[in-house]
C-alpha cells in the first residue's frame, strides 16, 4: 500500500502554468491532470499527453455509414423491388450509382459525426447528471490548476516548483491510498 498526497497548484494565468508543468516534468514528477477554463494551446506535449485517436474513430464510423447506406439502397432499389422508371430499370447498382451518391454521402457524414460525438462524450464520461469533474469550481472561470498525486518526497519538490513558478495557491487536499496491483 502506498499513500499519496493530493496537491492543487492554482495559477491565475496560463503562461506560468505551462512553465510549472515543464519544470515538474523535468524533475520527473508525473502530472495527474490539468484543469483550465479554455483549451491552452501547446500544453498537451508539455503534460505528456499522446495525441487523441478520436479522428480515427470518426473515419471508421464514416466508412460504416457508407457501407450501411450502400447495402440499404442496393437491397431496396436493386434487389427487393427494382423499379422501372421511364424505361430505365434498376437492374444493377453500378448503373444507378449517380443517383445514390447524395444519400451515400449524407449517411457517411451522419454516422461519422454522431458516432464520433458519442464516443467523445462516453470516453470523457460526459453524461447528463455526471458529477462535475473539476475539483475546484474556479477552474471553469479564470483559474488554472495542476492536479498532482505524489508521495512525501516528491510533494516537497513539487511544492517548491509550484511556488517558484508563480502559483497563487498550493492547496493540500488530503491523501489517497493506492492499493498495490497484484
Amino acid at each position, binding site marked *: 500500500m502506498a499513500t499519496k498526497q493530493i496537491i492543487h497548484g492554482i495559477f491565475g494565468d*496560463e*503562461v506560468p502554468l505551462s512553465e510549472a508543468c515543464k519544470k515538474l516534468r523535468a524533475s520527473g514528477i508525473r502530472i495527474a*491532470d*490539468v*484543469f*483550465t*477554463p*479554455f*483549451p*491552452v*494551446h501547446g*500544453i*498537451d506535449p508539455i503534460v505528456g*499527453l499522446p*495525441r*487523441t485517436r*478520436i*479522428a480515427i474513430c*470518426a473515419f471508421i464510423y464514416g466508412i460504416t455509414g457508407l457501407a450501411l447506406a450502400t447495402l440499404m*439502397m442496393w437491397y*431496396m*432499389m436493386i434487389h*427487393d*423491388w427494382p*423499379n422501372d*422508371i421511364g424505361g430505365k430499370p434498376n437492374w444493377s447498382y453500378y448503373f*444507378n450509382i449517380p*443517383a*445514390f451518391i*447524395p*444519400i451515400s*454521402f*449524407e*449517411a457517411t*457524414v*451522419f454516422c*461519422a*459525426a*454522431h458516432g*464520433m*460525438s458519442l464516443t*467523445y462524450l462516453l*470516453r*470523457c*464520461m*460526459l*453524461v*447528463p*447528471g*455526471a*458529477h*462535475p*469533474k*473539476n*475539483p475546484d*469550481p474556479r*477552474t*471553469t*472561470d*479564470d483559474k488554472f490548476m495542476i492536479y498532482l498525486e505524489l508521495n512525501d518526497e516528491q510533494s516537497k519538490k513539487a511544492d517548491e516548483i509550484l511556488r517558484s513558478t508563480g502559483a497563487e495557491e498550493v492547496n493540500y487536499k488530503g491523501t489517497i491510498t493506492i492499493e498495490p496491483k497484484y
Partner: protein
Amino acid sequence: MHAESNIREPLILGHKTYRNISDDIIAPIEGKANRTWYILFTISALAFMWGIGCLSYTIGVGIGAWGSNNGVDWAWDITNFVWWIGIGHAGTLISAVLLLFRQKWRMAINRSAEAMTIFAVLCAAIFVTLHTGRPWLDYMLFPLPNQFGSLWPNFNSPLLWDVFAVSTYATVSIVFWYIGLIPDFAMIRDRVIKPKMKKAYSLLSFGWGGSVRHWSRFEEVSLVLAGLSTPLVFSVHSIVSFDFATSVVPGWHTTIFPPYFVSGAVFSGFAMVLTLMLIVRKVYKLEAYLTVKHVEYMNIVIIVTGSIVGVAYLTELFMAWYSGVEWEQYAFLNRATGPMAWAYWIMMSCNVLSPQFFWFKKLRTSLAFTFVLSIVINIGMWFERFVIIVPTLCRTYLPSTWNTYSPSFIDVGIFVGTIGMFFTLFLLYSRTFPVIAQAELKSILKASGEEHKKAAEQAHH
C-alpha cells in the same frame, strides 16, 4: 501563446480579464429581463400562436386551405422552406468553414449563429412536413419496413435526398452546437448561486471539468466536426436545388442551381445573423466582443456572396438566350416582364444592387445602415425563391394550364407563425444560454484583445 500581427484589429475591446468575460456572458442569464425583451417576446409568441392556429387549420381541412392550385402546386410552402433552410446555412458556415480557415472573429458569433441555424431548420421542417398534405403519413418518407409490399421510398428522387440531407444537417448541427456548449454550461454551473439554476446547468453541462485530456479531445472533435459539416452544408443546399434542377420545368432545369443556391443561402444567412447580432450586442451590452470590425467582416462576406448571386442571375438570363430553347427564353422573359415582374425587380434590387453599397467603408461600418440592409437582403432572398417557384409554375408548357396565384390568409399565417417561432426560440435562448462561446473567446484574449495587443506593441518598440 500565439502572436498576432498589429495590423489586425483587436477582436476584444477594452480592458478585459478572463473573469470579465465570464461576468459579461453570465449577466443576461443571472439578471432579469428588461421591458424590451418582454415586449419582443410577447409579439413573437403571439405571432407563433397565430401560426399554430393556421397550421392546425391546415392539418384539419388539408392544403386546399392554401393559395396553391392545380398548376402552381408549389408556392409559399416551398418558398418558405428554401428561405429558412438557406438562412440556417450561415451558422454552419461561420462555425465550420471559418474554423477550418482559422478565422478568429468567428468566436464571438458562432454560438448565436448556430442557434439561429437550428431554429431556422426547425421552421423549414414545418413547411416540408406540412406540404405533403397528410403529415401523419410522413413516416413513409423514411425507409421503414412496411405492409405494402414492401414499398420502399425511391432513392433516385431528389425529394428523398432532401429528406436525408435536411435530417442529417439538423441533427449534426445540434450535436456540433451542443458539444461546444458543454464547457460554457459548466462555467455557468460553477458560477450561479441560485440552487435551481445550479441544478439545471449541472444537468446540461454533463459533468464537464476542463481536464487537459478532455480539452484535447474537444478540439479534435470540433475540428473533425467542422471538416464534416463543411461539405455537409454545401451538399444540403445543393440537394435542395436538385429538387428544382432535376425537373424538366423551364427555368428550373439548369446546372447553375447548386452553386447559385449555396451562395444565396450564405448571403441571406449572414444577413439574418447581422439582424440578430446587432440587437443582441445592444440589448446584452456585448459591444466589446461583437465589434464594428466583426460587422465589417460579415458585410464583406455579404458583398462576395451577393455578387455571386448577381452573376448567377445574369448567367441564367444569358444561358436562356444562348441555349436557343424557346421555353427557357420565355420562362425568363415572363419572370422579368410578366404579371409578376414586380417580384422579379424587388429581388434584383434587394439582392444585386443593395449589397453593392457595402463597397463603401463608411456604409459597411455603419451599424444602422447594416441593420436596415440586412432586413432588405432577407426580403430580397425570400422573393428570389418566390420568383423561381411561382411565376415559373404559372406559365409552363401548355397555355391551357396557365394560371395565376395569390396566397391565402392561412399561407400568410403559417409564414408569420414561423417567424414568431424563430424569434420566440431565439429570445428564450438568449436569456438561458451563453450567447458567446466564452471558452473559445478566452483563448484568444491574449492574442487579439485590445489591451494585450497594445502592450505587445509597446514592448516591441
